[in-house]
């Protein structure tokens, strides 16, 4: 188990390092940063000044190593656009994103578990197919479109919910649904597959034979075991939700990490973009690692992988 953990940890670090290199290069190669920072109507002198001030005239490798070293020492630098330090900017926005991410995950679980159980118990019938259709629709609809449909329904027609902002709990309802619905299908399928497998196993037959109610059999004995892999998947999905909230945050004008990333890309605010990307990839890598370890802990067969 220790060896396995170390191996996984090493792999995770490599992935994080790779992501940081790719992010750095992509940002630098997508156009002259100094020009973008200087803005419309800037004179050549201004642009040259920007280039020197921000050290953009140095070779890419040196810029990268420089950035990596300061970052590793805990200093994320200054935002070129907001002129404040990146760490506090991120600390400011992180809670909103975590809130939407966690809510969405809870929503996805609340939807996928009952649907998965229903589909498994009535496997092969119309109930199964209906549950599948509900879940798959989530994956088929692009989430920006789904978000607009929600706005039309709940804000414009029914006037139940505010369109955008993050001032009250009501503001989080639509973003949660729009984001959470998207990750429902894989979890629902996993619950369904797990339940079908568990329900046909020997101990369930024993439980039924003991004369337990079918509710108790399905939920107490069956679901508990079927949920084990879902927990691990949920951890990975949380990483996906945190990184994937850029579009949702932009549509609902939620002032979170995703929106910050979007702004920083449009303003070529490299220090911010890099820090956000690094942070999100680290979270993702960490959650994947947790999922791996969790799986391995629960199922010793996987430790050799």
């Amino acid at each position, binding site marked *: 188990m220790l060896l396995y953990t170390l191996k996984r940890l090493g792999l995770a670090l490599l992935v994080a390092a790779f992501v940081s290199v790719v992010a750095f290069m992509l940002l630098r190669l997508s156009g002259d940063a100094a020009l973008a920072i200087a803005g419309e109507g800037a004179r050549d002198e201004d642009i040259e000044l920007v280039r020197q001030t921000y050290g953009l005239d140095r070779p890419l490798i040196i810029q990268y190593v420089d950035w990596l070293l300061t970052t590793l020492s805990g200093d994320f630098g200054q935002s070129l656009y*907001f*002129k404040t330090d990146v760490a506090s900017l991120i600390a400011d926005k992180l809670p909103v994103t975590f809130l939407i991410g966690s809510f969405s995950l809870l929503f996805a679980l609340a939807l996928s578990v009952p649907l998965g159980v229903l589909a498994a118990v009535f496997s092969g019938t119309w109930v199964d197919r209906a549950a599948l259709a509900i879940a798959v629709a989530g994956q088929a609809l692009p989430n920006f479109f789904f978000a607009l449909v929600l706005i039309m329904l709940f804000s*414009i027609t029914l006037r139940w919910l505010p*369109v955008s902002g993050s001032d009250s709990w009501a503001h989080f309802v639509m973003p949660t649904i729009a984001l959470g619905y998207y990750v429902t299908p894989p979890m629902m399928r996993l619950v369904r597959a797990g339940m079908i497998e568990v329900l046909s196993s020997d101990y369930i037959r024993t439980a039924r034979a003991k004369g337990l109610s079918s509710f108790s059999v399905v939920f107490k004995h069956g679901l508990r075991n079927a949920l084990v892999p879902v927990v691990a998947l949920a951890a990975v999905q949380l990483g996906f939700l945190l990184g994937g909230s850029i579009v949702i945050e932009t*549509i609902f*004008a939620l*002032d979170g990490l995703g929106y910050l990333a979007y702004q920083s890309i449009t303003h070529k605010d490299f220090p911010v973009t890099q820090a956000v990307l690094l942070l999100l990839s680290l979270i993702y890598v960490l959650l994947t690692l947790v999922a791996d370890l969790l799986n391995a802990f629960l199922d010793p067969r996987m430790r050799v992988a």
Partner: protein
Amino acid sequence: MLGRSLTAAALLATLAALPASAAKKDNSIRFAYDQVLENIDPYFNNVRLGVMMNHAVWDTLIYRNPETNAYEPGLATSWKWIDDRTLELELRQGVKFHNGEPFDAEDVVYTLNFASDPANKATAQQNISWVEKAEKVDQYKVRIRTKRPFPAAIEYLAGPIPMHPNEYYAKVGPKGMNEKPVGTGPYKVVQHDVGKAIRLEANKDYWEGAPKPKPTIEKIEVRMIPDRQTQVAEMLSGGLDLIMNVPVEQAEQLKAAPHLAVNSGLTMRIVFVLFNAGENAPHPAIKDVRVRQAIAHAIDKETMARQLVGEGAQVIETICFPTQFGCTDEGAKRYPYDPEKAKALLAEAGYKDGFDLQFYSYRERPQAEAMVNYLRAVGIRANLNFMQYAAMREQHRANKAAATHQTWGSFSINDVSAGPSAYFKGIDDDMTKDPEVIALFEKGDTSVDPEVRKEAYKRGLQLVNERAYAVPLYALTTYYVSDKELEFKAYPDELPRFWEMKWK
């Protein structure tokens, strides 16, 4: 397309239920904008929202009346040029900043000297770099010395140059000014949630005799909403009272909503095609004046203005906004839409079978596509290269783009020195570098006599047209969508004047 059909469907839904405006009841306005302000201090941002905040929270020495474009006393009661490079201003007495600090010469001197010092890295250098230094003469009199003769100074002092309180600003700097802004203007900032919202409150003690009226609306909430669909949805659901820059097709549909008013307003942003016709021009055909003239004849700007720009669009014949000082189309060669003449000119220049052309653009894509089609109609095989502004400018300045679709807002400065001079005075964006044209714009920018300036600009604009260095097209409009009960007026400088607005 998607957005359009959604708006249409949403409209049907909204026709049923009409909300009573919550904002009207508590005498506030909820406004949204799609940009984020990096710093609310007007010297340290270069976005439109920053200009709006500048005029709501601060005041300028001189005031330009938006109706007449005449200069009127602001924080300065009078001003005169002592020599070519020295402007003397008498200051108003009895004005107080939001924090109680009295306004006097010290504030003017500190603000101007601080902002114009390159070491302080003001963002919009071009707005302030003409100031050499400001000096106090007595408590209510200052002199501003310019680096070179700069007659447009008056216009700049009426625009992007607000007055800061010297003691407070010296203590907190631009960073503190962002967190807790202090000006003399009609509104006070009560809260600035960076990236999210700015909340303003009417300044009850706004100084007597100010050219801006005392505000009627008590509270303004400016929210940053990046997505236009979301802004429109907020308007439909009654969550906002005013938005601007609504795309023409959505604005047209929103007219059907009974609780909304849709207004279009002309803006100072002009659109033109800029050629790179210099010695080392990247395209041989574009070097030929007949080819450039052919392109000017090939584009039907009247139709484009009417159908693609929207209500109230104004066709221009020279590359400046008509109200700008020195802007005129008198005696300038015109190029009416005439595809036959365009073909004839091409044939005459030896391009009977046309040629390949990369056409660069960065905004208003439908307009760029229309132009590409007009060019193809006369045999020029144009290909659209649509990219970010910074990328297009890079291509242009690197001498790689022969024809670019440009737009220019002159920073809302009502003077030609902030307009065509940027493109034809031999600096940065001027790739053609015609010495005769350069000399004329230089003369216009630096002469003190208004008549001499006007004459120089007129001749310069005439030459640009005659030699077809650019194809002037039209001034853009912008659509405002507001609650029907809100009374407001749109101006070409795209500045929503909250202090003038009222609930009916």
